[in-house]
């Protein structure tokens, strides 16, 4: 494949960025969820 480096770099940025953001949201959510009672979580 021509330009394989550029193409893979693009997908690493896109997928890696998404995964990093998702991981951050989940981790932060769990950390906060432990400190709060269920009344403060209307989605449960």
């Amino acid at each position, binding site marked *: 494949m021509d330009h394989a480096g550029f193409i893979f770099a693009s997908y690493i940025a896109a997928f890696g960025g998404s995964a990093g953001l998702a991981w951050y*949201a989940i981790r932060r959510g769990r950390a906060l*969820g*432990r400190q709060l009672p269920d009344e403060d979580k209307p989605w449960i």
Partner: protein
Amino acid sequence: MQSPAGTEAGTEAGTDGRTGNRTTDRHTNGNEDSAHVATTQTPPTASGSAHRAAGSARAGTGTRFTRVLGVLTIAALAVLALFALVLSPPDVVQGESVRILYAHVGTVWVAYLAFIVTAVASGAYLWKRTSSLTWDRIAGASAEIGVLFMAITLFTGSLWGRITWGTFWVWDARVTTTAFLFVTYVGYLAVRGLGGTHEQRARRSAVVALLAVLEIPLVHFSVRLWRSVHQDASVAGSTDVKLDDEMLFTLLLGTVAFTMMYVWYVLHRQRVLAMEDALDDKGLDLALAERRNEGLEARDMTEGTTR
């Protein structure tokens, strides 16, 4: 059991001040720590709810819907990678570099969608009849993922441009506007972090988001006018992609997959932000109860000595 512990906390606060207690509250992460917080720091008035907090097993921000959505998103992204990198053919004109566009178009679409949502949610917050901090949190969550995807877009776009045009950057109206949008929303996130009450943060950032809506068309228009004077605005137009069905499908798939990712993130993040706000309020409640205890004790003491 609860009540004596609470009084103890109150006495402690009387000598030590309550800021120390609030900091420990912030730093607790582990399970045993939160249990500790619940028993020793709970004032008598809030003991019931805190008891449940210690026993809460349901951590996290997931629901059945977001879990299903999350799995589907991962699947869609995997299929996207398969089609984009393996199954779809190279473009007649552009060759392999067209593969970058499958990721590029999806993220740029999400970035613009995110900023539209931020603007609409900000408007909804400022409009009295729909005003709610939930709108503010949606606006913030949306801007966060928008800024990240905008950065990814600029990165993938400049790689694609290097292959296609031989340069990482062109002063095309679309590209320039996108870059300005990126900087503007970085500024928006900085304004969200300024502090103050939740309402202050919400109103300030909502006004900034609406001002950004004012700014962006102006930037776009002036850059376009500028490039048209210089007569070289047509770089972007010269490399049109001839899409066959497979490529069109991959492009659509990319857009759908990243949009699902966006929805998933905003749902989760909005809940995280709600919990951050709630935790702030909880800290204040604790502080208030301690303060009241402190006040009552101080009064008992002075009355005891004078009588």
